């Protein structure tokens, strides 16, 4: 039976306290926080982090296809999933595809992954923006989640995939022009009524086709593009309210395409064996999916890695948040901006640049970057390291000065002088343990320069 072999989530480190918005923007905000992607993160980098976590949970599954969904693709024309593919060091034969532009696309990614013969990876990630002081700024959040789908022969199935109801409906309740920083919405009541009806239809279909009812549901997830409609459908579903999965709205916010996978992961992280989870996604129609956990669902890190990611955040000021998103134009450093990355040079160094592969020479020394004549290639992305020395560079160009730069010695050998991220300069100490994270160093001429940085290892990030 096809099912979920592993799931992984990624909540960016920074949290915006939404009660600070109104003072600046004149209105908006709310109680609680939203997750904020760093200035060096985008949907691709966060997707990589979530996918790395999912693959750690299902290490035996040899991924044969990759499906990447996002509303905020870093590239058009060019496929974004290929960078995820490269960072995960997947095989060349692993087909990698984007489903971009809509929240609903995530369910398409999952459906495609389920429909494949071999192990498949569905990844969804989003950086969700809205204009300052608007409701979307407070409703949205940034994050990613990934699911490894496969059969029992590919690993331990933690949840079997059951019935799936898909209803498509054309109406413009929420939309965004390409390359705009904001979504536009129709009058709220219209969507609430329309989604209310189609959401109930989808649940009815699901229960009928499986011979089940609301009482059989142990965890109900309702998410989508219309917050109020989701809450209303959950309330009227007949599923007891204590079985409705929290939508993470007060801490993370709605992460767009990532949110269905994120909430499914949240449910799996708390579920007991032999429980039923229903995922209902209200986005341009309705997608209802029933999954059934197996005893393997308990094979997970104690405490749950998403729970620990939620607890690991640090605040960011509203001004810096706006600057990071490009919504507040701040004076750039008075230094030359980075030149664009050479596509041909980058194309030659994919294992290093994207896969973070070093090499080992015959004398046993580890080389980062790899030496051209070393035969042994070493995957280093999951190696932890220690800060041997570091410096704070107030001169170097960075979109978020100052640059914190450390000499990192990796467990098992290898040294790299590398930029630190997700860190406050004053907190860095020699001896700090760090882990590698895939980031966007800069962008020039529309080319994003992806590479790795180090960040403090905080228990639970994995």
């Amino acid at each position: 039976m096809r099912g979920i072999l592993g799931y992984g989530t990624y909540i960016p480190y920074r949290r915006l306290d939404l009660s600070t918005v109104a003072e600046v923007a004149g209105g908006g905000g709310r109680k609680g926080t939203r997750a904020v992607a760093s200035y060096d993160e985008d949907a691709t980098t966060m997707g990589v982090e979530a996918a790395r976590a999912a693959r750690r949970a299902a290490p035996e599954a040899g991924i044969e296809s990759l499906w990447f969904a996002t509303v905020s693709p870093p590239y058009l024309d060019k496929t974004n999933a290929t960078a995820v593919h490269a960072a995960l060091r997947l095989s060349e034969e692993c087909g990698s595809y984007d489903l971009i532009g809509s929240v609903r696309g995530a369910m398409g990614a999952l459906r495609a992954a389920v429909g494949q013969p071999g192990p498949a990876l569905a990844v969804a990630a989003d950086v969700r923006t809205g204009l300052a002081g608007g409701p979307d700024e407070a409703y949205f959040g940034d994050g990613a989640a990934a699911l490894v789908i496969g059969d029992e022969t590919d690993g331990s199935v933690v949840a079997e995939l059951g019935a799936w109801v898909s209803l498509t409906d054309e109406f413009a309740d929420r939309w965004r022009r390409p390359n705009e920083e904001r979504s536009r919405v129709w009058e709220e009541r219209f969507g609430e009524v329309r989604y209310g009806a189609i959401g109930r239809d989808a649940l009815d279909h699901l229960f009928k086709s499986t011979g089940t009812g609301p009482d059989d549901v142990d965890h109900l997830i309702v998410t989508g593009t219309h917050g109020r409609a989701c809450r209303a459908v959950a309330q009227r579903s007949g599923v007891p309210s204590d079985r409705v999965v929290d939508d993470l709205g007060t801490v993370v916010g709605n992460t767009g395409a990532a949110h269905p996978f994120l909430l499914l992961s949240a449910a799996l992280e708390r579920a007991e064996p032999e429980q039923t989870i229903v995922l209902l996604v209200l986005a341009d129609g309705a997608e209802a999916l029933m999954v059934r956990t197996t005893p393997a669902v308990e094979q997970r890190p104690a405490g749950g890695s998403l729970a620990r990611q939620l607890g690991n955040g640090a605040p960011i000021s509203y001004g810096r948040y706006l600057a990071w998103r490009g919504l507040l134009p701040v004076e750039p450093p008075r230094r030359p901006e980075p030149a664009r990355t050479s596509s041909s040079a980058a194309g030659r160094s994919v294992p290093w640049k994207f896969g973070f592969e070093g090499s080992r020479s015959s004398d046993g020394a580890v080389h980062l970057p790899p030496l051209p004549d070393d035969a042994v290639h070493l995957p280093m992305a999951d190696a932890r390291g220690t800060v041997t020395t570091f410096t704070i560079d107030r001169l170097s160009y960075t979109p978020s000065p100052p640059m914190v730069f450390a000499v990192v010695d990796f467990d098992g050998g290898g040294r790299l002088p590398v930029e630190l991220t997700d860190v406050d300069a004053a907190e860095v100490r020699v001896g700090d343990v760090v882990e590698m994270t895939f980031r966007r160093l800069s962008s020039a001429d529309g080319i994003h320069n992806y590479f790795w940085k180090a960040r403090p290892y905080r228990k639970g990030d994995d």
Partner: protein
Amino acid sequence: MGSHGIKDKVAIVGMACTKFGEHWDLGVDELVLQAAEGAFDSAGVSRADIDAYWLGTAQSGMSGLLVSRPLRVNDKPVTRVENFCASGSEALRQAAYAVSSGAYDVAMAIGVEKLKDSGYQGANAFPVPSDGTNRTVTAAAMYSMIVPAYAKRYGIGVDEVKQALARIASKNHANGARNPRAQFRKEVTVEQLLAMPRIAGELSVFDCAGVADGAAAAVVVRAEDAHRYSSSPLFVKGLSFVVGDGSGVSDPDYDYTTFPEVIASATEAYRQAGITDPRSQLAMAEVHDCFTPTELVLMEDLGFCERGSAWKEELSGSFDLTGDLPVNPDGGLKSFGHPVGASGLRMMFEVWLQLRGEAPEDRRISTFGARNLALTHNLGGYPGEMVSFVSILGTEGPGS
């Protein structure tokens, strides 16, 4: 096989150096002209007497045309060389070998850099198309890593290291203040230096070399011809150049308190020149103080003092003008300024002045008259991946 050096085979018979600084009214052409014509005059030659030119510049232009065009030199070889911040020294080294081989009778080495046309403060490397994974950290930040590393290795406080660094900057500013060609001619006290805001690690702007425009040039001939051009030539006693394999940046054993390339190049130059105790044999040294911690480490790597003692020696004034081994009597990169391709030849220009008694009295080295050998040290790159040049020059020729 082997490195043999060219001790006493080549002499410098004329030198010139422009004022270093912000030359808003001078371009590369004018700087080249000033330095070249000054060196022609110094050697008593005309440009027609020069058989071949070597030009050192890191990024102020390309090809020998940078010299041939402003000097209106036709039908002569002009070779542009580049080796990071040691490009000027590299030009001198190539010119010296060329005359030593007999290929040419008279050669000119010239170094030039026009840094102040970039529109940005600080020096910025020319972007080479890349895969985007190279470090973007500044040189100041890379060299700032020496400070905590040095403190840790020798069990002293970072504050003690900072005192020594401030003393280095203060010394070099005091020397530069007495040098009309220097970019910064203001004395700065240790207290003022310690109060500066930090820009990279523990370093302030005043721990960094001055970003300057400038040029310097030398005329070289075979030693046996030297007295036809100058009554007091400078003889080349040793020239060494070492390029590391860059493994330091990825070697977990590298600890940022020493530059192996410098040790190797100094060892080779001392061997060529027959120097066994540089501290007592050298009259002076011009070293590559691109950042104050660089000078600190160089004092040990060049063998001027014991490991772990440079900070104390700097504090006690051993390397002051009045010390027993004056270091950077012209102000160094710190206050003379660092027009990259010109700096190596600028160092030799100070040797030219000091050993031959032409340095002004208020900047004269304590060893003048007592010793007749001097060292210049010019490096490029970063801790762990650098190029290093050492020359030994002296006033006594082969016959004496």
